[in-house]
């Protein structure tokens, strides 16, 4: 259902980007970077005056005729992004949330691999599978 998924770390460095069509990768890299500003804005605008804990899911960060970008930020300030085709009207909010939870869970899983050094690019087969499942099945 997604056409691209990305994991970006606390310092805004992309650690994983995968997309359905490899030819689009460069374009998506650019979109992911642009979305980071939107995320920072969202976090600071609700940031300091919080009286409640905020949910990880940020909803739609921005949308163009072609693509819609959703964002999600964990307690460790790890950013997860999902890009979908804007023409895909069938996708419900619930489904996007479920995709994020799946990716977050997978990220926390691979972080527990004792041979994965935090901060390194994610090259896990396990993560690859989950990312693929989100892009194919949703």
């Amino acid at each position, binding site marked *: 259902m997604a056409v691209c998924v990305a994991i970006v770390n606390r310092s805004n460095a992309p650690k994983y980007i995968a997309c359905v069509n490899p030819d689009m990768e460069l374009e998506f890299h650019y979109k992911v970077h642009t979305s980071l500003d939107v995320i920072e804005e969202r976090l600071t605008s609700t940031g300091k005056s919080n009286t409640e804990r905020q949910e990880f899911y940020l909803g739609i960060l921005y949308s163009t005729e072609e693509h819609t970008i959703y964002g999600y930020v964990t307690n*460790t300030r790890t950013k997860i992004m999902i890009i979908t085709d804007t023409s895909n009207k069938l996708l419900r909010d619930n489904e996007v949330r479920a995709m994020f939870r799946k990716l977050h869970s997978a990220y926390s899983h691979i972080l*527990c691999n004792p041979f994965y050094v935090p901060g390194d690019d994610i090259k896990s087969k396990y993560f690859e599978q989950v990312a693929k499942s989100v892009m194919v099945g949703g």
Partner: protein
Amino acid sequence: MTQALADEILLDLIHAEIVAYANGSPSDGEEKKDTDYSKIELMGFSCGYRIIERSTKDGARFKDELDTMKFICTELWAAIYKKPIDNLRTNYQGTYLLQDNSFRFLNKMSNGSQYLESAGKYVVFTCGLLRGALSNLGINAIVSMEINTMPVVKFHIQVSQPQN
């Protein structure tokens, strides 16, 4: 005292092996050195850094530093150490004092003062765990310990930079 649950004993035993390993020499035949505290601390750091993403993934984003600290002292501590921290104090300027009156890795040892000296090496893993968990949450801190009576442990956390 009732018998520990089976799922607890493995962590106790592997923790004891880590302490023993850092206490001895890395290879056979060498003479015994002082306990390598930093090695134990780093292993604790690694565990704390990794476990915190997993144990906070079903919640929501913490409000602030104090909220984060409360989570660690209540929920996470209770899950790992079988009871919440007994006392959390802060000066609201980045200094926190956590007191555990019956620390899991010490409460099977005798209370005698002769053990007090060696107690630190059973606590330093947890200093690392705290530092690692906080680090991944974006809080850089120095964590130190204070043991005056067994099995009471005080953890001092000094946050070195304001969060974000």
